[in-house]
């Protein structure tokens, strides 16, 4: 179980990766990873899902998530950054470089570290996302409408996807900047797709419920832990699940 829990202004954020029962029964670890950091008015998030077929998918996901967020944090610490797709794409490339370096160090194939990656940088006025693979990023805007910022990439079946460790990953790298206030942000791995999306569209009742749980309580993380371990989620997936939620609280900074 991996987690990042932050209570800062103006962002209130929580995130958790939990092992799926399919992995539990097979004695496998959680192969998802999540990283959340805030820097004043800036929110950084990453969600990574290590491939079940990869020998070291868990390590790959952990490196991908942490390295991409650290890269953005370091860039911001060096000075003001333009919120452009290039900035987010470079975080994905940096994660990929780190994975390649780790593969050399471990003398293994890069594919042994196969992982998807979602990287998010949000401010009170905009959100930028770079994404390789499945999982998704959804945002609730000022009209209380949930919109998809980045959708899952699936292959021929719902269980096939692409990885940041693929040879031609750049072909599948999607990056977007949306200059509209993101009041709530929900990012997740593919284990959550069947409850957060309904026919690939945001399922507002679920998204409102989980983000209300965070926005209106100081026990958001405990609630998230309960949810991801619940029979409700287990009834839908045997896969590892990661859910990262952030709520923007106006008037706090």
């Amino acid at each position, binding site marked *: 179980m991996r987690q990042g829990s932050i209570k800062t202004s103006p962002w209130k954020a929580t995130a958790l990766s939990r092992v799926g029962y399919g992995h539990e029964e097979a004695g496998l670890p959680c192969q998802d990873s999540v990283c959340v950091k805030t820097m004043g008015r800036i929110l950084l998030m990453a969600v990574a899902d290590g491939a079940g077929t990869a020998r070291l998918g868990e390590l790959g996901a952990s490196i991908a998530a942490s390295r991409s967020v650290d890269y953005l944090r370091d860039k911001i610490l060096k000075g003001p950054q333009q919120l452009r797709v290039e900035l987010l794409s470079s975080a994905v490339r940096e994660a990929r470089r780190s994975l390649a370096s780790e593969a050399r160090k471990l003398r293994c194939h890069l594919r042994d570290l196969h992982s998807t990656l979602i990287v998010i940088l949000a401010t009170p006025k905009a959100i930028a996302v770079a994404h390789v693979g499945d999982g998704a990023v959804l945002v609730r805007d000022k009209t209380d409408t949930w919109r998809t910022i980045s959708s899952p990439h*699936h292959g*021929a*079946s*719902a*269980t096939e996807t692409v990885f940041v460790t693929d040879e031609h990953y750049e072909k599948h790298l999607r990056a977007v900047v949306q200059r509209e206030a993101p009041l709530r942000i929900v990012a997740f791995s593919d284990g959550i797709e*069947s*409850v957060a*999306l*309904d*026919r*690939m*569209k945001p*399922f507002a*009742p*679920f998204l409102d*419920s*989980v983000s209300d*749980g965070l926005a209106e309580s100081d026990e958001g993380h405990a*609630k*998230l832990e*309960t*949810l991801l371990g*619940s029979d*409700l989620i287990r*009834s*839908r997936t*045997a896969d590892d699940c990661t859910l990262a939620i952030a709520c923007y609280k106006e008037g706090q900074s």
Partner: protein
Amino acid sequence: MTAVPIPEVQRFTCISIVADTSGSMDETYSGKHGGSETKMQGMLRGLKEAIQYCRNHPTLSRSAVFSLTTVNESPADVPFTSVQQFPELHIQASGRTPLGAALHRATDGIADYLHGLNSQGLTWTKPTMVIITDGAPNGEPSKYVEDAIDRVRELVVARKIFVLALGVTAEDVARIESLQIAHGAIEVGKVGWSEAFRVVSASAASLAQGQQPLLPTGGTP
């Protein structure tokens, strides 16, 4: 965080029937109901009962889709169709047993159907392929049969499909078991067509409810 709403499940349960419809299926068989009906009549009766079970099942009635692929490409072949709309079948047993071609068509059919579901954002449980055999494959090059079996085996190894075999005789069961593609094999002559298809429909119900498929005795998950 109790009572979190989630979308209604619309996870398709796909059952692909690959049926031996060769001339030998027009013969009567020994065992339950044997002598009073031909193998073809028994198979169609068992399949009809399975379809009826799914139509009445709380989950399968909405989620089950069946396809039928016959070895001799009979006009009765049915692409994946909702269990509620699956047609009444009338098949004339005839010809040889080109199983390889049927397995290729069935495998293509599963891939195409899942791709279509995926493009609509719909999900599915692991598809089940039911292979019904009565006698050894013939009427096509053995390499073609081997290629088709290898294709099915690859899907099994990758855990993308679940395979059940219904062999009319113990010899048919032994033959399909030797191919190492079936998770479980049932000897129809011993248990009867109704019971054989009951395992198929019960397994589909288990898959539809997010559980492991049911296996006949001696099956390998």
